């Protein structure tokens, strides 16, 4: 329901800078995920949008209005917290009712809204309980209900699923996504879990040390990383990054030689995703290494190869079987290779990238 | 607090008179007191101030009291003053009376007869007992005390009179014929007059220090019935007796005395040293505590304290009283009320087993029973109605009411000759006879500014001597030095000195040249 803009936003705590000069434009009804390791400033960014923190510099704009000095209570945003933040002294019903009460929604409408929100998250039978009497997943849904009930302009979710077990997490993901699509509410979602980010986001913002490293759709982020940080952060296992030297259309590193575009030269880092590596016969190989570890996951088998000092991850066929120490030869999809400036980590855009899509 | 005894004695007096007040008040209380015409006939009120109404029923029975006055109606002020004249001048006026906290209610009731007699409305200004001195001072300092009259520990008289906190009462005493002559001189001079500056107080609780013996125990040593004058003729004999008593066993200590820090120890020393002929000051007001007589008194005190009950170094009046009434000691040096109160069966285990004797003498000394403490009644200098306040105090200290306090054994002692010489009173107060005979010889420390502080400081030193930390001589020397410093602080030895020693000398010792009261 609202577009959110961050303009040159900086947040400092004493001498420490939490967020550096951030520019971000979140479209109406977009589902944006802030992703990054802990301490990267993603939560601070969200809290500035919520109004829980005041930017040291810059402007936060929601729905076209600068809201820097507007209290959280007046921004019409709803937030879901990692620890659920249900009011322990109130029943679930009262919890969900709280934002309605605060906003002066007529009593007559409250009950209907509450029940509808509870139904949306399948909590209709638990309204009389206190939060303490609910399971983790139920509490999470109660928190969601409390956020949805008043249909705010903006949803903010701060790692809402991180306290749930893996199975519950994946079902809740679907539920959240569904809700967002259904309600068409601009949503900012903070997580350090890339699966959540990839599955939920319209766009992902990757942050590190208070700065944005890349903004893009999940595909772009995954396949077309902007720098080594993003490359190394996204993907499980992440992209293999090998430092080497590029000269005359040839990239070379210990145990690895591959043809590279002519524009690439000097000290360069090669990036290649494990699934873009194939076990090949002699002669075709770009890389030779000894098997360091084998991880069959059922659907596939991950090989860790050791070549020189580097460990290299490869996704092999599900039935591939190797013994430790076996010599394995690997070939790459040449058009799925990424090159980065070793010095800066920045992507060297020398060739069009063949997207998966 | 420290002056504990005095504070609550007043309370007991007031609660004792409460019953009578209630009785007298019935039927009158409802009508306003201000209109003179509404006031009851004075005689009917006075008639109710009687033994039958005021003395505890159980004591009346216990001592077969006839209901006859315990005083001499001819000198009882309330029965001689012209109440009509009082009413003419005072009816409708108000007097504010500072009373100890807990007393408020009983005081109000006790003063109903006065309100009825005089037409004066009494308002009570409660002050907590435990900080009476400080609060009184605070009130005085403020320049407009919230009360007109108050009663306080007599050693404070100098402290309060010197800065001009108190009103002079000579004119009122004369105008209303206060029978000052009925007071024993020692009380009149030490509780009433401030040196040569005039009358500032009406004696209230008139204490004297005396020696008390347990008959059953002492007679085991002396081998015969106790004679109040001759069984313990000297302090040497008292020391000997306590030595003998210590061999008796039975968990009874030979002697109890006041050995606690502060003025308690001072009083015990003064008590004995006075017999030795000790004076506190020379003619120039220089303290001479460590005179030969002072030393001798100290030696005797220390010799006695060797046989004293355990805990004597912490014994103030309350502890001493408990030990005495509980039967823990065989002899006791304390106020006369140790005798009076020992007659209360509800509190005393030694009813009928004690006798209060004449002060033992000291060779080369004199017969000088000390009256050490007690309380006096005063009017504030800032009072709006000092005359009314005076009249109220005169009512409260009148001999008939004081006599009945004594009969009730509530610890508030009368200082009137007519009372203590009354044969009916002597029947209900064992010490009265010896006490009254002794008062003509009484010794008393002058009430000069700073005296209370001086007594406190000296007592701390004497306490050290009692527990053997310093010698008796050191204690007196330290005390002497401290006294001089405190006196300087209070303007002595300078042009601020308020009067010469001659002004208080007459009040110190009454017995000079008088024949002994016993054979």
């Amino acid at each position, binding site marked *: 329901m609202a577009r959110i803009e961050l303009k040159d936003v900086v947040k400092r705590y004493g001498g420490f800078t939490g967020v550096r000069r951030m520019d971000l434009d979140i479209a109406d009804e977009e589902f944006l995920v802030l992703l990054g390791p802990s301490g990267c400033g993603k939560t601070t960014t969200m809290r500035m949008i919520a109004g829980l923190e005041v930017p040291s510099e810059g402007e936060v704009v929601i729905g076209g209005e600068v809201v820097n000095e507007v209290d959280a209570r*007046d921004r019409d945003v709803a937030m879901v917290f990692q620890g659920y933040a249900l009011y322990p002294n109130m029943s679930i019903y009262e919890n969900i009712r709280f934002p309605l009460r605060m906003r002066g929604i007529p009593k007559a409408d409250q009950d209907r809204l509450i029940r509808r929100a509870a139904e949306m998250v399948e909590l209709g039978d638990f309204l009389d309980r206190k939060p303490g009497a609910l399971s983790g997943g139920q509490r999470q849904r109660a928190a969601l209900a409390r956020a949805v009930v008043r249909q705010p302009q903006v949803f903010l979710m701060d790692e809402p699923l991180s306290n749930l077990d893996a199975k519950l997490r994946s079902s809740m993901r679907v539920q959240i996504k569904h809700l967002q699509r259904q309600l068409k509410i601009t949503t900012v979602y903070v997580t350090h879990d890339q699966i959540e980010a990839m599955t939920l986001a319209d766009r992902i913002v990757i942050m590190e040390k208070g700065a944005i490293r890349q903004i893009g759709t999940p595909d772009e982020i995954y396949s077309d990383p902007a720098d080594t940080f993003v490359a190394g952060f996204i993907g499980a296992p992440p992209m293999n990054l090998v430092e080497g030297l590029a000269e005359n259309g040839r990239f070379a590193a210990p145990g690895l030689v591959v043809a590279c575009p002519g524009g690439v030269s000097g000290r360069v880092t090669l990036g290649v995703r494990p699934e873009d590596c194939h076990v090949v016969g002699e002669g075709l190989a770009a890389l030779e290494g000894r098997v360091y570890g084998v991880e069959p996951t059922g659907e596939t088998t991950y090989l860790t190869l050791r070549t020189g000092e580097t460990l290299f991850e490869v996704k092999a066929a599900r039935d591939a079987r190797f013994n430790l120490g076996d010599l394995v030869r690997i070939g790459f999809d040449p058009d799925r290779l990424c090159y980065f400036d070793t010095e800066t980590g920045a992507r060297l855009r020398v060739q069009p990238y063949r997207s998966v899509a | 607090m420290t002056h504990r005894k005095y504070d609550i004695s007043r309370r007991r007096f007031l609660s004792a008179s409460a019953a009578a007040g209630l009785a007298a008040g019935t039927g009158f209380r409802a009508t306003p007191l201000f209109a003179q015409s509404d006031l009851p006939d004075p005689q009917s009120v006075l008639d109710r101030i009687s033994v039958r109404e005021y003395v505890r029923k159980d004591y009346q029975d216990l001592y077969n009291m006839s209901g006859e006055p315990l005083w001499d109606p001819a000198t009882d002020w309330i029965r001689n003053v012209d109440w009509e004249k009082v009413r003419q001048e005072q009816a409708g006026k108000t007097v504010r009376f500072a009373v100890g906290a807990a007393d408020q209610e009983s005081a109000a009731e006790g003063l109903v007869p006065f309100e009825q007699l005089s037409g004066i409305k009494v308002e009570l200004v409660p002050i907590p007992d435990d900080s009476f001195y400080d609060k009184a001072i605070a009130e005085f300092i403020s320049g407009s005390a919230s009360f007109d009259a108050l009663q306080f520990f007599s050693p404070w008289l100098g402290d309060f009179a010197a800065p001009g906190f108190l009103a002079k009462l000579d004119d009122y005493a004369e105008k209303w014929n206060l029978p000052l002559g009925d007071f024993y001189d020692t009380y009149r001079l030490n509780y009433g007059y401030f040196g040569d500056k005039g009358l500032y107080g009406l004696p209230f609780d008139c204490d004297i220090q005396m020696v008390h013996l347990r008959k059953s125990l002492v007679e085991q040593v002396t081998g015969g019935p106790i004679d109040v004058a001759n069984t313990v003729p000297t302090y040497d004999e008292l020391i000997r007796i306590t030595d003998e008593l210590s061999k008796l066993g039975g968990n009874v200590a030979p002697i109890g005395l006041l050995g606690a820090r502060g003025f308690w120890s001072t009083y015990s020393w003064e008590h004995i040293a006075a017999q030795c002929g000790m004076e506190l000051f020379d003619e120039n007001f220089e303290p001479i505590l460590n005179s030969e007589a002072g030393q001798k008194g100290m030696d005797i005190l220390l010799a006695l304290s060797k046989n004293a009950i355990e805990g004597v*170094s912490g014994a103030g009046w309350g502890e001493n009283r408990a030990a005495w009434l509980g039967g823990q000691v065989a002899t006791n040096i304390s106020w006369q009320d140790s005798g009076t109160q020992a007659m209360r069966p509800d509190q005393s285990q030694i009813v009928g087993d004690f006798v209060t004797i004449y002060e033992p003498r000291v060779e080369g000394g004199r017969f000088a029973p000390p009256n050490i403490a007690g309380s006096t009644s005063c009017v504030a200098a800032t009072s709006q109605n000092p005359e009314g306040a005076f009249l109220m105090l005169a009512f409260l200290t009148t001999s008939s009411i004081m006599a009945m306090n004594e009969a009730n054994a509530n610890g508030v002692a009368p200082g009137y000759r007519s009372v203590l010489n009354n044969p009916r009173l002597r029947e209900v107060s064992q010490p009265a006879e010896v006490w009254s005979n002794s008062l003509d010889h009484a010794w008393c420390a002058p009430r000069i500014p700073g005296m209370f502080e001086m007594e406190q400081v000296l007592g701390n030193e004497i306490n050290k001597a009692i527990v053997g930390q310093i010698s008796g001589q050191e204690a007196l020397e330290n005390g002497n030095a401290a006294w001089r410093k405190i006196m300087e602080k209070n303007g002595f030895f300078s042009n601020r000195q308020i009067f010469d020693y001659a002004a208080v000398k007459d009040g110190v010792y009454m017995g000079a040249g008088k024949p002994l009261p016993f054979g």
Partner: protein
Amino acid sequence: MAAIDQTGGAAQAAPDRARPREKTLRRRSPALRRAFPYLLVAPAVIYLLGITLYPGAYAVYQSFYLVRFTEWIPVGFDNYVELAGDAEFWQAMLNTLLIGGIALTVECVIAMALAFFAYRDALIRGWRIAFLMPMLFMPSAVAFIWKLAFNDGRVISDLLRKLGLIEGNLDFLGNIWLARTTLIVADVWQWTPFLFIIFVAALQSQDQEVEEAARLDGASWPAIFWNISLPMIRPVIAVAVVLRGIDIMTMFTNVFILTKGTPGGMTETISYFIYRQGFQTFNFGYASAAAVVMLVITILAAQLVVKRAFKSGKT
């Protein structure tokens, strides 16, 4: 997810949208935002300043005067100079440290020993209530209990005599160390539970796994207690001892009722000294000087000890 499907799509949800009454966005000035926490804490601070700053300043002011009723004679630092040379003042200091120090040590040792035995005991609630009782009495009443037992009622002497330990009665007020002992016993009796309760709570709230691990390693309980449990609750011990220490160093009631400083001032504490100078000999200026010295010591102790104890105690 069935529920969501039933409620249908966005089309149905939109009209239901709960909108607050339209109003322009309220803005709060940064100044107010910054001032707000101060405004919250201000009433409490002002209130407390009233009972500390005002009396403190009053005492400092008065300490430069010789107070004789209405007369306040300025004497500069005379009161402090006199205090420095006042043997009774230093004796009171020493007494406070001795009596307080011994009582505090004894209380700690006993409380620790009791806690060691009690904290794993099934009857812990019972012990706690029983040990707690003395603490729930009015301190002045407790002082009277012991006054009666030690001195007035001769009970302790009688019991010791029955045990054959003494003959006659002990003079608990006449002997320096017996008198101090009465104060110590009275304080230990009433306040050991304070430490006990805190120690037990601390011991119970620590991680049991560590103790169990040590036990599997073959350590005895005393060894575990001494080497593992105690160090783990050290911050708690610090806080408890500091709090108890504050109270014990301002000991007054027991002195006032039990000994009045006898024999010869050897049980007089600083609080009692101030009281005696102020309320018994009416040297208000001098008493204020002593109070100021005590105040300075208090502030120093607060800065040096209490602050640290409470910092480390913050868990």
